[in-house]
């Protein structure tokens, strides 16, 4: 299903300076994206998933810098790219991004046709007439009916779902190799969300793109992803195929995330909840960042950061539990029986 390695981030460290204090948003994050696949990046807010995506586009805020690590893409190290001119060759053209809120991504004072057309004119060097034809084609491809009329309309004349389609159109208009989607459906209704997810899957096949999909919703992950990377406190702590992550998760944080699903709740009883809050990234983190919230943490978790352990050729996790010397600790029963429970509920409905 997936082809050659297309983009790989290795041990990325990103720091922000905020009022004289240093915040380490990425603490050595590694990730691979293969040709033709959809990789979902899951994590809570502050886990660094959006920061990671922004480094691929050279879009870090001014106070943020990549202090270590590399991003290999087509023989270039994007982490060393500093001139805006070099980024313009990549951003939008090779790697495009869709954001969460379609309203802030569009200019309210320009017609949507004009906004997409200028992207095509700039990146694909077409003249006005050609780029307009191309825009109409793209609008049609993202499922906007009557593109000729819609071309002349302004963003406020579109519903939320339609706006997100316009944003997607402007992202795929230049036929990028990689489409980064940052929570593209979080602001949308569930029925619209289902349609947008289907659209992204269809466009991925049609334009032969790889998709990096950032989300916190495990249901969305199950829907779109071929592979999954789980992030916590600025690191990717587990990566595997979507089946491996849902049926054979290895890192305690992944267990906790799955166990917190409301679908696993029993009415009248408390939901499983992860204690405490994620660690402050202003402070140095010792050992396994999840250890203070993990009731099953080992002694070593508080002392040393776990390395990456391979589970299968496609699955790895950063947890001491995979060390041969570690005691045998199994994931919570509820997590192991997730599929069983969901299937049982389906039968009833």
């Amino acid at each position, binding site marked *: 299903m997936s082809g050659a390695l297309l983009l790989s981030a290795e041990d990325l460290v990103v720091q922000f300076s905020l009022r004289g204090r240093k915040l380490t948003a990425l603490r050595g994050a590694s990730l691979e994206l293969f040709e033709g696949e959809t990789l979902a990046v899951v994590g809570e807010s502050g886990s660094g998933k959006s920061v990671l995506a922004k480094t691929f586009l050279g879009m870090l805020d001014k106070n943020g810098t990549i202090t270590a690590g590399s991003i290999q893409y087509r023989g270039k190290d994007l982490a060393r790219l500093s001139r805006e001119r070099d980024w313009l060759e990549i951003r939008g053209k090779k790697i495009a991004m869709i954001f969460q809120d379609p309203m802030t991504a569009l200019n309210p004072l320009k017609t949507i046709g004009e906004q997409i057309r200028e992207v095509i004119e700039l990146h694909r060097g077409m003249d006005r007439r050609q780029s307009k034809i191309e825009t109409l084609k793209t609008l049609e491809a993202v499922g906007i009916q009557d593109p000729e009329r819609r071309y002349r309309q302004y963003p406020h004349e579109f519903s939320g779902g339609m706006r997100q389609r316009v944003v997607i159109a402007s992202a795929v208009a230049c036929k990028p190799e990689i489409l980064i989607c940052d929570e593209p459906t979080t602001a949308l209704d*569930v029925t619209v*969300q*289902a349609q947008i997810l289907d659209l992204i899957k269809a466009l991925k096949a049609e334009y032969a793109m790889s998709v990096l999909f950032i989300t*916190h919703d495990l*249901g969305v992950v199950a829907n779109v992803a071929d592979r999954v990377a789980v992030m916590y406190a600025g690191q990717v702590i587990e990566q595997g195929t979507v089946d491996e992550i849902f049926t054979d998760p290895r890192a305690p944080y992944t267990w906790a995330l799955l166990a917190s*699903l409301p*679908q696993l709740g029993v009415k009248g009883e408390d939901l499983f909840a*992860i204690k405490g809050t994620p660690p402050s990234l202003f402070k140095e983190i010792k050992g396994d960042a999840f250890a203070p919230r993990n009731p099953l943490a080992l002694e070593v978790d508080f002392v040393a950061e776990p390395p990456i352990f391979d589970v299968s050729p496609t699955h790895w996790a950063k947890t001491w539990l995979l060390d041969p010397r570690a005691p045998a600790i199994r994931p919570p029963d509820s997590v192991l029986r997730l599929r069983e429970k969901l299937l049982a509920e389906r039968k009833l*409905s």
Partner: protein
Amino acid sequence: MKQSPLLSVKNISVDFGSGRKKFRAVSNVSFDVYESETLSLVGESGSGKTTIGRAIMRVHPISEGEIIYRGERISGDLTPKAERLVHQKIQMIFQDPMASLNERAKIDYIVSEGLYSFHLFKDEAERVAKVEQALRDVGLLPEFATRFPHEFSGGQRQRIGIARALVMEPELLVADEPISALDVSIRAQVINLLNKLKRNKSLTYLFIAHDLSVVRFISDRIAVIYRGRLVELAQSEDLFRKPLHPYTRALLTAVPTPDPEIEKKKKIIVYKPAARSPDEPAPSWIEAEPGHFVLGTEKEVNSWLKL
């Protein structure tokens, strides 16, 4: 469910604008909320669910119908006494904990504001005690009272929002998407807190939400709203096991299930309201099964029941 309702919403409509620009956001909606139950209103953005919550809170005036609380009308013009009753006994929790707290006020003032407005304390010592108790009830430390909102995380801010409601000793909490803005791990904590408070303080919740997986877990009954109208209302499990209205079915299938196998086989249903010919009877609110109501014509409901 034989007891009398705590809150009755009777045939209410809410209009925005006037004249040619008039827009009916809520149209002829009725439902009851019984004591110590959780009733959820679910629907998409723009369906009118928030407007109903705000109409109950008297933020939006209703243009038709009435709202009854413990046998007393609380919509329209009220006596000062009835007005007080609403503002004290019905409290609201908001969606965005980042936007709903006054950034320039200390937690102490934020939580006390309702107490000040209604002079609900004898002396300063009692006010402080009430604030401290409310903070403890939501799992925060009393010493947080001297801090400002920006010092707290999203989950903690939502707890402050809940404390601000609790300090008024309410009976009914209208919670408008109180967990939508929270992360997965924090969300579970807040759901558990809301459930615990419901048990310990015998609260009644009107929960406004769009996340159906959470709604199923917390609600006793669920009402589905589509374009300002109630289309279905049932016990939570009945609704999930046997959704009748085509819109409810579309909504339920759209929710992504956290399992790749199930998601691969999924087919989404897109709901398009059926076109009605003028000689057909208008849809009415029909009790299709005991406690399971749906909006449709007699003929439609019978065909839905057979599915």
